[in-house]
């Protein structure tokens, strides 16, 4: 309800600057378009990577991009959280009778991210028929699980990023490794980076749970039905993220501005 109100206010306010808005959308689109182009060029040259074909990689790229841009639209409020803390805005949030996370999320909704989302939709509509996957019911469910779980995991990462601000007051650039890096390098199935990287992205940052294992099931490389439900396990990643947020919140000291 209240989120809907915030939503329409943000929409109206961003629509006041139409040229700037559309240029930003175009820019967002271009940025991910070049990521897409580089995949085209690399796979045009090498044909396949570790047995994955061009169309399969595109499917993987589109799923990750879509999950990321959805998470970004709604959870990017965490991105500017450092300024919310340093200018004292967070004190105001604390005294209001609503959940803090809700308020931070609602304080910033980025519509210009639809540039990236549009890209993801175009690529995924191309890749779904082209990937050679026979789309039975369970495969469709798997794909939906992947998107939901990916969105949750990226949101969790944004939440961790924000929680660090409780301790450092400033955003930490190294978290970009897992958010932007997860998007960039997640365009390819994580196994191609080698065993160690795959393990890291399974057990530490569970990106592979929505991106790699269900993808194996989707492309018929593995018949293991568990892989279909692994994305749901990935959603559990939000639990430690939330705990970390609570932990940070208890340590919060106002900056006094």
């Amino acid at each position, binding site marked *: 309800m209240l989120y809907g109100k915030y939503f329409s206010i943000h929409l109206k306010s961003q629509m006041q600057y139409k040229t700037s808005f559309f240029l930003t959308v175009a820019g967002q689109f271009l940025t991910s378009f070049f990521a897409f182009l580089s995949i085209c*060029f690399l796979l045009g040259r090498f044909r396949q990577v570790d047995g994955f074909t061009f169309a399969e990689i595109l499917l993987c790229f589109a799923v990750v991009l879509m999950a990321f841009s959805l998470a970004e639209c709604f959870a990017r409020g965490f991105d500017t959280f450092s300024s919310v803390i340093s200018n004292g805005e967070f004190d105001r949030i604390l005294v209001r009778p609503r959940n803090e996370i809700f308020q931070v999320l609602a304080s910033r909704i980025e519509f210009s991210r639809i540039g990236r989302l549009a890209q993801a939709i175009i690529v995924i509509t191309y890749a779904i028929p082209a990937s050679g996957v026979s789309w039975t019911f369970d495969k469709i469910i798997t794909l939906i699980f992947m998107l939901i779980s990916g969105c949750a995991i990226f949101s969790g990462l944004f939440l961790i990023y924000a929680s660090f601000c409780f301790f450092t007051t400033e955003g930490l650039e190294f978290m970009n490794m897992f958010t932007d890096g997860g998007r960039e390098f997640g365009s390819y199935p994580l196994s191609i980076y080698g065993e160690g990287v795959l393990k890291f992205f399974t057990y530490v940052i569970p990106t592979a749970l929505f991106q790699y294992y269900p993808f194996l099931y989707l492309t018929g490389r593995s018949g293991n039905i568990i892989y279909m439900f692994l994305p749901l396990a990935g959603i559990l990643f939000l639990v430690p993220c939330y705990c970390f947020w609570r932990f940070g919140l208890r340590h919060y000291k106002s900056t006094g501005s």
Partner: protein
Amino acid sequence: MKQYLSLFRIRFTNNLQYRAAAYAGVATQFFWGFMELLLYRAFYRSDSANFPMDFAQLSSYIWLQQAFLTLFMVWYLDSEIMQTITNGNIAYELSRPMDLYSMWFIKNISARLSRAFLRCVPVLLFAAFLPKPYSLSLPHDFPAFALFLITSVLALFTVVSFCMLVYISTFYTMSPIGIRVVASSLMEFLSGAIIPLPFLPDGIRRIVDLTPFASMQNLPLRIYSGNIAGAEMVRGILLQIFWLLTMLLIGRLWMKKTLKKVVIQGG
């Protein structure tokens, strides 16, 4: 001249203050370089015959790119300059007894140098001690190293002279974000920051090679490892000098024309 030198010094030491941010950046750069190498290793494994560079050359390219990221990346546009234009503080800048173009140019150069200065040493050291094909190797030979240094400086100037054009265009658009995102993502791709230019399809690469973007990080980083040598290198350097002079000239003329009819936005 003296005032420009001291301006350079002030900006340089000023930027050296942000050490913690620089060290956090270093960690990101290790990770990024590492993942990129692993990605290319997978392609190399799949089809080494189509690989357009030696793997060791690619490793040097990627590590140098990460180490000197802040020298050559376009998206390090100075948001302060953009703001002075949109909020009207440009009036103060104009009343200083210095040439605006040179002033901004030097400001950019020193900001980039000081950032790179903090970041490059740990990255270079780390990369030098990695196991063989993944490490930063020594330069191809001594002349290659000397030319790497010279073309790096020229490349830095080329990048900044291009950024100047973006700044000047802000006088007309008054909305820095849009143009900034479009210009920087386009340039990043064409300059070989996303994938090294040799990996582009041949037809496209031949065209990109002629643009000013190929004179940026592409040239010095490939000269270092001997990937570009001989006649191709001479052609590349001449082209680089040509583009640098052209963009400096365009920038100066455009700036002059713009300042004649500039409207100060309140403030």
